[in-house]
């Protein structure tokens, strides 16, 4: 598996000379062993992290993500997501089956538990399927968990490329009858599929019972219709930062309103 190029790359490894042998006498190990193996319920007390460190990790890492997106956008191919359409296609039973097969499962996340980080797994299942050209974008949800799943056209070996991202939250706040909530809205580099297609922008959330349609305007000026089904809405478009900041919402009585997409 290791080509000469990968062997050469090994020389650029920033950690290749890092020495950090673990010893049974390490103080850091003693700190871990001093923690209860089962976190007592009802307590929220970070176990090992010092205050301020977590924020520093997050901001440094967030900066890295921004850089990634920029890279991808800059190198975006004009033909990226060529079969994408501003209006979603009807969802066929085959699309639903693909969504079930590719995107179900569980949302797993390390969350801050009573005594420090714990792994939380929540079963999720598709709640909305959005089909545009060769791409199937799926919103999944479970109790206190939601996520998105992007299934590209099949690759040369015949297997669809699937990329997922999910989050576990304490509670999903339901929208009022004439409102919508936004659970995710941002640009991503779906480089796990065919990376040549580059960045895309996606947004999804929940809608109130009176909402029958949601449409957004792309930064290019083009109007794009979201999929709306079973109390959920979702939309995606090729390119970085492609979606406008408000949505045009149509209600069951035929009236419309503009609502910010957070």
């Amino acid at each position, binding site marked *: 598996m290791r*080509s000469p190029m990968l062997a050469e790359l090994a020389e650029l490894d920033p950690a290749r000379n890092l020495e950090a042998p*673990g010893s049974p006498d390490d103080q850091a190990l003693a700190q871990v062993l001093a923690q209860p*193996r089962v976190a007592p319920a009802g307590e929220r007390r970070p176990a090992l992290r010092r205050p301020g460190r977590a924020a520093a990790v997050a901001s440094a890492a967030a900066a890295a993500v921004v850089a990634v997106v920029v890279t991808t956008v800059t190198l975006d191919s004009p033909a990226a997501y060529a079969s994408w359409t501003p209006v979603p296609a009807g969802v066929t039973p085959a699309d639903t089956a693909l969504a079930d097969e590719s995107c179900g499962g569980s949302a797993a996340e*390390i969350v801050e538990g009573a005594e*420090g980080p714990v792994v939380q797994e929540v079963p999720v299942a598709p709640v909305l399927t959005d089909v545009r050209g060769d791409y199937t974008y799926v919103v999944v949800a479970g109790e206190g968990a939601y996520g998105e799943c992007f299934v590209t056209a099949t690759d040369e070996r015949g297997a669809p490329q699937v990329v997922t991202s999910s989050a576990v939250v304490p509670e999903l706040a339901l929208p009022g009858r004439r409102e919508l909530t936004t659970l995710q809205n941002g640009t991503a580099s779906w480089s*796990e599929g*065919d990376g040549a297609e580059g960045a895309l922008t996606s947004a999804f959330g929940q809608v109130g019972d009176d909402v029958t349609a949601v449409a957004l305007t792309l930064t290019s000026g083009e109007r794009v219709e979201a999929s709306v089904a079973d109390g959920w809405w979702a939309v995606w478009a090729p390119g970085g930062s492609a979606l406008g900041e408000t949505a045009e919402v149509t209600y069951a009585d035929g009236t419309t309103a503009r609502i910010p997409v957070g």
Partner: protein
Amino acid sequence: MGGRLRSVDDAEAQERLTGLWVEHHEQVTRFVARRVAPELVEDVVSESFLVAWRRLDDVPRDARPWLFGVARNVLATHLRTHGRWRALSVRLEQQPEPARQGADDVAVDRADLRQAWELLSDGDREVIALVAWDGLTAVEAARVLGCRPTTFSVRLTRARKRLLAFSEVPSETAEVLQKLQEAR
């Protein structure tokens, strides 16, 4: 243990985690150091082993990919609190060593490779790093990323192709591309 359900008792658990620590601490530390700033490495490594401590019954015999996966999740969780997360950024060694700055072919190749690496997406960097730096097989790397080994192999092949293609981009073009990225 009597007839109780299988669950390692405290002494056994301590021994097991100590064993994992001794055997894998350096590799996990390197894995994390490739992905975050040096001052944060210790905390992330400790958190990762704390997860292992809490889930000791779940740690497989081949623990290294599992531990890498946990460390990746710990990093990702930090990230998610401030923004969307898709792929972790894998850092490159900051500066070439002085011995490599000569005009020999190897140094030139390495400069091309460095340039190509900077142009890759984070996703591509991650799959390559899992093999080239973290030293995993496709099966192990797939376990870290939570995908099928065949999917990982496809991704690795594509990432390598792009790395090769980018290494052949003239340096002037690469500079322009990077300036465009910085300007955005």
